[in-house]
C-alpha cells in the first residue's frame, strides 16, 4: 500500500450518520502518518535529541586485519555533534565538530583546526563524516513518501541541499517501534552506494535504541565498518562551549 497515511473504512449507518462520522474523522486525522511525521519518529527512535555516547568503530581492512577506534561523542540537536577519539593512543585527542554542514577537525600537536567536507570518509572507514556525525536524517533530508511492506515502513528521503553525501536515502523501519533496521544510500546518479544494517536493540536509560550498525560499501567487495554503542545517556546539560570550532583545542 502506498502511504500518505492510513485508510479507515467508514461503514454506513442507518441512523444519524453525523454522530459517528465526526468522531471517525477525528480518528482519521489523529491516525494520519505523514512521511514527515514518520521521519521524525525514526529520528527519535534512533537516538535521543541530546546525549553523550561511547562508540567503538571497527574498520575491516582485510580478512584478517581490523583497526578499532573508540570515540566519545556529545550531541545536541539544535547545536551540533562533537566527537573525540579516546583510543588508539596515536589517535587519542583527535576531535571532530559538525555544525549544520560545516565540519572541522583538530589533531593534538598540530597548530590549526582543519576544515573537512562532510562527504569525505570518516577516518578512512566506510562511513562518511556526515553518516557518523549527523544523528538525525531530518536535518539534511526531506521525507518524500513511504510504503508499508512485511510489517515495516519503507521511507524515501531526498537531499535538501547538494552539500550532503547522498542524493537519496531509503530507510526500512519496524512498524511497531519505528526503529530503523536498514538504510540504503544512493549517489547522485541513482546508484546504490552504501547500505547500513542496524541491529542489537538495547535499553539505555529505559529506552530502546539500535546499538549495532554495519555500513557496507557496495562499490568495494567485502568492505565494511562496524560501529557499536557501548554506552548512551541522555544529557540536557551539555555545555555549549563544545559546539564552537574556535574552542576545539580547548
Amino acid at each position, binding site marked *: 500500500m502506498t502511504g500518505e497515511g492510513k485508510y479507515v473504512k467508514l461503514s454506513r449507518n442507518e441512523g444519524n450518520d453525523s454522530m459517528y462520522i465526526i468522531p471517525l474523522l477525528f480518528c482519521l486525522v489523529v491516525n494520519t502518518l505523514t512521511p514527515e511525521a514518520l521521519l521524525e519518529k525514526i529520528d527519535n527512535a534512533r537516538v535521543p535529541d541530546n546525549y553523550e555516547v561511547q562508540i567503538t568503530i571497527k574498520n575491516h581492512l582485510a580478512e584478517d586485519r581490523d583497526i578499532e577506534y573508540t570515540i566519545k561523542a556529545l550531541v545536541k540537536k539544535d547545536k551540533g555533534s562533537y566527537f573525540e577519539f579516546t583510543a588508539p593512543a596515536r589517535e587519542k585527542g583527535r576531535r571532530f565538530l559538525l555544525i549544520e554542514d560545516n565540519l572541522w577537525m583538530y589533531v593534538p600537536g598540530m597548530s590549526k583546526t582543519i576544515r573537512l567536507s562532510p562527504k*569525505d*570518509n570518516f*577516518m578512512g572507514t566506510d562511513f562518511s563524516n556526515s553518516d557518523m556525525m549527523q544523528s538525525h536524517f531530518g536535518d539534511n533530508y526531506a521525507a518524500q513518501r513511504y510504503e508499508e511492506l512485511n510489517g515495516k515502513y519503507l521511507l524515501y528521503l531526498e537531499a535538501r541541499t547538494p552539500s550532503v553525501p547522498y542524493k537519496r536515502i531509503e530507510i526500512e523501519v519496524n512498524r511497531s517501534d519505528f526503529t530503523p533496521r536498514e538504510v540504503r544510500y544512493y549517489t547522485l546518479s541513482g546508484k546504490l552506494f552504501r547500505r547500513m544494517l542496524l541491529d542489537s536493540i538495547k535499553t539505555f536509560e529505559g529506552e530502546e535504541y539500535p546499538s549495532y550498525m554495519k555500513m557496507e560499501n557496495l562499490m568495494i567487495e567485502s568492505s565494511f565498518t562496524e560501529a557499536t554503542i557501548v554506552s548512551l545517556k541522555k544529557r540536557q546539560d551539555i555545555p555549549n562551549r563544545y559546539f564552537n570550532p574556535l574552542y576545539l583545542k580547548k
Partner: protein
Amino acid sequence: MIVAVFFLIQPLAFQGYAGYSIGLENEKIYNSLFGSLNLSKEEDIYSIYTEFRSNYTFPEESLFYSLDRAVVYLFPYPLTIALGKERVNWGFGMFYSPCDFFNPRYSIFDYERLREGVLMMELGYEWKPSVIQEFVAVLPEDEEGNIKDKIRLGSKLNFFLNNYECFLSGVYYDSNLPVSFGIRKDIFDFILYSESSFEHNGDSLHPSFLLGVNRMLGTQGIVNMEYYYNSKGITEWSDSIPFLSSVTPTPGYTGRHYIYFSTELGKEEGFSAGLYSVFHPLWKAGFVGLNVSYNGFENIIIRGTGIKIVKRGEFSLLPFDYLLGMEIRYYY
C-alpha cells in the same frame, strides 16, 4: 603558576610519544632520542593543557626542549577566558598565514607543523553561535625590550555568511595596525580558503595574500596546497646579498612568491607515502621531501624521510644538499 596549582590538585590525563631517529646529512650521521608528553584535565567549566617536547641529539650532545602549551581555560558561557602559554593561530593557512602576527614562523622542514605557543591572555565572547569575537594580548618571548613595547594586542571577529566561514581582524604591535580578513568554504569535496592582510608601514601599504586548498585522504593525512604572496619579500635574490651579511634569512620567507604542497597517501594500517615541498616558482628554488611510513604495529610508526634541496636563491644558504632519516615512534 595558575597551571601548576591546577595540576597539583587535579588528576590528569596523559598521552604522548617517544622515539629514536637516525639521520644522514652530507655524509654526517646524527642520532636523536625524542619524546612528547601532553597532560590535560577537562571539565565542563574549565580545562587545562600542557604539551612538552624534547629531543636529545648525539654525538653532538645537544638537548632541545620546548613547553609548547601550559594554559588554563575557563568557560563562563558565553565568555571564554584563556591564560598561559598557548598557540594563537589566526588565519586559515596551514603553513603560510598572512594574518598570523603572533607566532614564530614554521621551519620548512617541519612536516608535522609543530609550534611553540606564546604567553597570552585571551577573552572570547559568543555574540551568537555563528558570531564569536576574540580579544587577545600576546607577549612574544623572543623579542627584546620592555613588556610595554613587546606586547601585541588584537581582536578578531569570526562569523558565517551563508556557510562561508569568515573572519575580520586587527592587530596592534610596534606602532603598526595591520588589518586582515579571510574566507573558507567546502566546494566539491575540497576546502578552499583565502586570507589577506594589509599593513601600513611609513608611506607604503604592504599587502600579503594566501590562496589554499585542502582535502582529507582517509586517516593518513591531507592533500594541501597553498600559494603565498608577500609584498615585503624581495624580488631578485642578488638584491638581498648586502642584507644577508648581517641577518640570516629563514628559508621559505624572504621572497615574494611561494608554493607549499603536502600530501600523504596510504591505508590506516600498512604503508603510506607522502610528499611535501616549499618552492619559489620564479627563482626555481626550494626543496622536496618524501616520507614513507609503516604503521602496521599497534601504536608504532616507522618512518623514513628523504629531503633534497634545490640550491638556488635563499635555499643555497642551507648547509646541506640532502638529508636522509629514519625514525621509530611509539605512542602511549
